[in-house]
């Protein structure tokens, strides 16, 4: 980082008297700020030459000690700071969670999102398999989270929800998950509410799952003649790490074998072709991606699709899947200000 005089000189490319700088002058300006010519060979030679002088050995040692002390101080201060920040954020999160709670009432959720100019037409969430507890408990927690998110999305009027979970354990329990989601929606809407959304659940390469006892969306129009169009539909897509890089690798394999059989020239491969294939086999681009962790890490989320996705995560959030975070994500997406209270 250079001083102010130098930086203005660089910016205008002129020195203080307004003369244009030559290349050599520019270099001269920068000389004091450069790291010492620290090529290994010359320093080694110098060391050998003045091995018996004390200064070059003592000074680096002092400097190293100074650096190390400063490093420790910085990190001590920083860990205090970050703990304070975490407490602060936790308090904010609590307040938000108290102010915005859904009470399992779709009307409240609808009122929360009513003021938003837009709602994502494809919402995506990253859920983590909780590391503690047995496998059964962890799966149960995960399913609960997924159900809650599905219910909120359905209430908020999101037509498409994709749930990313790295290990793909959810894909193995699709019928169970569907039953749980139905139960949650019933808890939200009541047993025979005509506006209760229908849900279909699917995963890439696994056909869409809608069990026989739940009426598929096409037949509801004939059943309920009073309000056929008001019954919304939510499509839930389960994705895992294998739908990310691995899918692209699979696509490359297919393309490679096609090229080997002379069915395709490598020059034919274009971004449009790949996009069409990936959209077909996995999913399109989500509009909003919610991360419920304490920092934003994609953790293997499909790379091709996150191109223009708005990524939202709450700093230092530790509470896991919470309605307040969901709502704040929607507010961020609509670029709306969130005011305290409703």
């Amino acid at each position, binding site marked *: 980082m250079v001083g102010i005089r130098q930086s203005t000189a660089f910016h205008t490319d002129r020195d203080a008297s307004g003369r244009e700088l030559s290349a050599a002058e520019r270099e001269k300006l920068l000389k004091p700020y450069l790291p010492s010519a620290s090529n290994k060979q010359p320093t080694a030679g110098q060391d050998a030459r003045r091995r018996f002088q004390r200064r070059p050995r003592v000074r680096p040692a002092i400097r190293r000690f100074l650096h190390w002390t400063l490093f420790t101080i910085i990190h001590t201060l*920083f860990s205090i700071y970050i703990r304070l920040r975490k407490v602060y954020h936790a308090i904010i999160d609590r307040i938000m969670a108290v102010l915005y709670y859904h009470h399992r009432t779709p009307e409240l959720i609808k009122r929360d999102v009513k003021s938003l100019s837009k709602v994502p037409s494809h919402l995506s969430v990253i859920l983590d398999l909780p590391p503690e507890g047995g496998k059964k408990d962890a799966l149960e927690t995960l399913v609960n989270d997924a159900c809650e998110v599905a219910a909120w999305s359905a209430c908020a009027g999101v037509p498409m929800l994709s749930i990313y979970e790295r290990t793909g354990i959810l894909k193995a329990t699709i019928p169970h998950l569907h039953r749980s989601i139905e139960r949650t929606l019933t808890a939200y809407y009541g047993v025979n509410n005509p506006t209760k959304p229908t849900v279909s659940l699917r995963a890439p390469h696994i056909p869409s799952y809608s069990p026989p006892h739940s009426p598929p969306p096409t037949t509801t129009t004939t059943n309920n003649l009073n309000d056929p169009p008001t019954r919304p539909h939510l499509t839930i897509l389960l994705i895992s790490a294998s739908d990310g890089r691995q899918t692209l690798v699979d696509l490359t394999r297919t393309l*490679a074998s096609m*090229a080997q059989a002379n069915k395709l020239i490598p020059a034919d491969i274009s971004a449009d072709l790949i996009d069409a294939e990936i959209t077909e086999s996995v999913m399109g681009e989500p509009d909003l991606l919610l991360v419920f962790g304490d920092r934003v890490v994609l953790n293997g989320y499909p790379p091709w699709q996150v191109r223009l996705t708005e990524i939202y995560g709450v700093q230092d959030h530790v509470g896991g899947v919470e309605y307040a975070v969901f709502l704040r994500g929607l507010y961020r997406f609509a670029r709306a200000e969130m005011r305290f209270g409703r």
Partner: protein
Amino acid sequence: MATSRNASLRRWLLSLPPLEYALQQIRELLIGSLKCGPIPKHIAFVMDGNRRYAREHKLETVEGHHLGFEALARILEVCYKSGVEVVTIYAFSIENFKRSKYEVDGLMDMAKTKLVQMSQHGELFDRYGASVRILGDLSLVREDVIAEVNRAVEMTAHNQQAVLNVCFPYTSREEITRSIRETVKEYSVPADRAQAVGWRAFSESHIQRSLRSSRRLSNISEESRRSHPDLQPLTGEKEKAQAHPNPADLPSEDYSSADSTTEISSQEDLDANTTTTTTTTTAPSSSSQTSYSSPSPDFKPTTTPSKSTSKSTSKSTSTTQKPSHLPDPESLTTAHLTRNTYTSPAPPLDLLVRTSGVYRLSDFMLWQCHETTELRFLDCLWPNFDLWRFLPVLVEWQWRRRREGVGGLGEGKGGKVV
């Protein structure tokens, strides 16, 4: 009025030599002490907010970009002094060509002047040991800019310590597409296998020959061997070899295959018009291997053949070579695709910083950053971004790394090119 006087007072104070010196020492000290902890090996920046900064300060847009470049220089200094190996910056997106022609031209002119300045100050790069690499589809850029790009890249190519990746006309989807295309190209040329077989000390035909002779010798014990399950495939293959329609050319198969490979390489030379030495008639297999190793992945980008030539080469390979010589597509892994990305020899991305309060990746480093990279979205505009704003990000990253206890492991992991 008061603010402008304050600002000028601050400027005057900061330009006092002792204070300037002290500040400089403090910065050096901070950077030096940062080096005591783990340092991200690869950082990417999206330099967003130059235009908004210019608008807010009532400057020309291009002027905003200039200020952004200065901010970049400041950050690069911090990065390289603290020991970051690779810095990748998003300078220009392919999508940016859709902006006004005036601005695009301004950006191109700026890129050119900065590149010219860079080539004037090659020594500075040497001092940091940094080499410049330009990532992106250069075919979209004006020719005079390309010339400067090549000059700057060549001039710094010998530096090994650090890398500055400038994503010039870049989008990540284009990168992934290109990577897939290159991988497919690699797999539709039988180079890998031919090379691998050629370098082994044993020749297949020789083994077949000795097998046949041994079979002739132990013809009597045929029954016992057939009952043995382990040798079953061997005998089957041997029979196939015997049932070869043209047994006369079997002993000299290694020579014939060498001839065919040289044929292909020479044809490629003619087609792609490269300057690789044509060693066609000097038959020994070693020379064929040297000429064969030239169209290996390293050389691909320069000799990207047009449609017709690639077609002709692939046809010629399919006619002269048996299809079994092609590598198996099932052996393809993510490592192949990673190797063909623009950033390929760089360590995995540790940290991605995006300024100006935009919370999306905008087609940048999609392949690289979707695993364990920490994404940081900051609200400040890029021209305001400096050591004091960068330091908290870096320290927080260090703090997490140290808490996760990956500090020691991180070095071993970071060295691995993924």
